[in-house]
């Protein structure tokens, strides 16, 4: 009883604070100075029409690198918690979903049709990250959704973990190498202006932003696939 009462009091207090926040909030009428300088400088200095991608892969690329490291750590820790070295998970054989319940015809046919389309869509999202909405993170997540669909349709499906880890390490190493090349050739670490900027809005433009986008997509896709595979029963 006393616990329930304290929960109600805590939620009510949070609600009061949030209500005052929501009431006193006023919409911005114009951009703040930092955002305005980003909006002005990304198309001019980097040649990228998508300002968010310019921020993510150049001005705050170090942030992105750190976050990819976090993803790698999560993939490793999921493997550590669920993987080999522990006693096998005690699911009795008649409870195992892959043996008792194979996925239905509808799911399997759907996967066969959708997996190629989803792969093409992921490639499109990754490659157009500097031109329109999209980028490495989003495309990588779409690739992982492809792997998830395969795991649902074919419970015995075994992604090639060795290939995934090699591809992921190569992408990570090339990302850091591109950063060091920016340090040597251009102004700073992860500067994308080591390749020519090209024509504004063209497919091959904006320096190394498309390259970094592809590397990021491969890395995120591989890491999320390894995480998903860790949860196989």
């Amino acid at each position, binding site marked *: 009883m006393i616990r329930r009462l304290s929960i109600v009091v805590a939620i009510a207090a949070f609600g009061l604070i949030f209500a005052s*926040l929501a009431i006193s909030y006023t919409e911005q009428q114009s951009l703040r100075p930092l955002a305005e300088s980003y*909006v002005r400088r990304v*198309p001019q200095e980097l040649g990228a029409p998508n300002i968010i991608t310019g*921020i*993510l892969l150049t001005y705050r690329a170090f942030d992105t690198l750190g*976050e990819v490291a976090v993803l790698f750590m999560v993939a490793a820790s999921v493997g550590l*918690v669920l993987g080999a070295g522990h006693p096998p998970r005690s699911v009795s054989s008649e409870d195992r979903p892959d043996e008792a319940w194979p996925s239905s015809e509808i799911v399997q046919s759907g996967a066969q049709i959708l997996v190629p389309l989803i792969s093409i869509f992921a490639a499109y999202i990754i490659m157009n990250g500097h031109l329109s909405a999209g980028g490495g993170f989003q495309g990588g997540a779409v690739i992982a959704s492809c792997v998830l669909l395969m795991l649902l349709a074919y419970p015995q499906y075994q992604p090639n973990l060795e290939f995934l880890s090699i591809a992921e390490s190569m992408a990570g190493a090339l990302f850091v190498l591109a950063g060091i090349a920016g340090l040597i050739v251009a102004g700073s670490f992860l500067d994308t202006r080591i390749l020519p900027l090209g024509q*504004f809005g063209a497919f091959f433009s904006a320096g190394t932003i498309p390259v970094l986008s592809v590397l990021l997509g491969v890395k995120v896709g591989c890491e999320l696939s390894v995480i998903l595979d860790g949860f196989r029963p």
Partner: protein
Amino acid sequence: MISSIVLTTGLLLILIGSWGILTHRNILRIIISFSLMGTGTHIIIVAIGYVKNGTAPIIDRTLDLSEATSRVVDPIPSALVVTAIVIGMAVTAVMLAYTIRLYDSKKTLSIDAFTESKW
């Protein structure tokens, strides 16, 4: 106006999430509540970046370079949320992995059964 509605939705999601964390005893429901809270914060960050009558910060045929600074929304919160969403998903994956191991050790998902680290 629109950003106030979105901001209120995000705050409500955080409230619902914290209520779920405090009242539910099933670990899976607690994880769902955590995800709700995370989604609420993402929505709030995006709402704060909205500029009145703004459009997406992508220069194309409908948005000329010269008028970009007066017509786009703040790109920084959007860039931060892209990373925050991926990290939120990763945190959920770690929580679920631990949940599987906890279920193995006690054969229950009720948080009342795990009293070792309680004082």
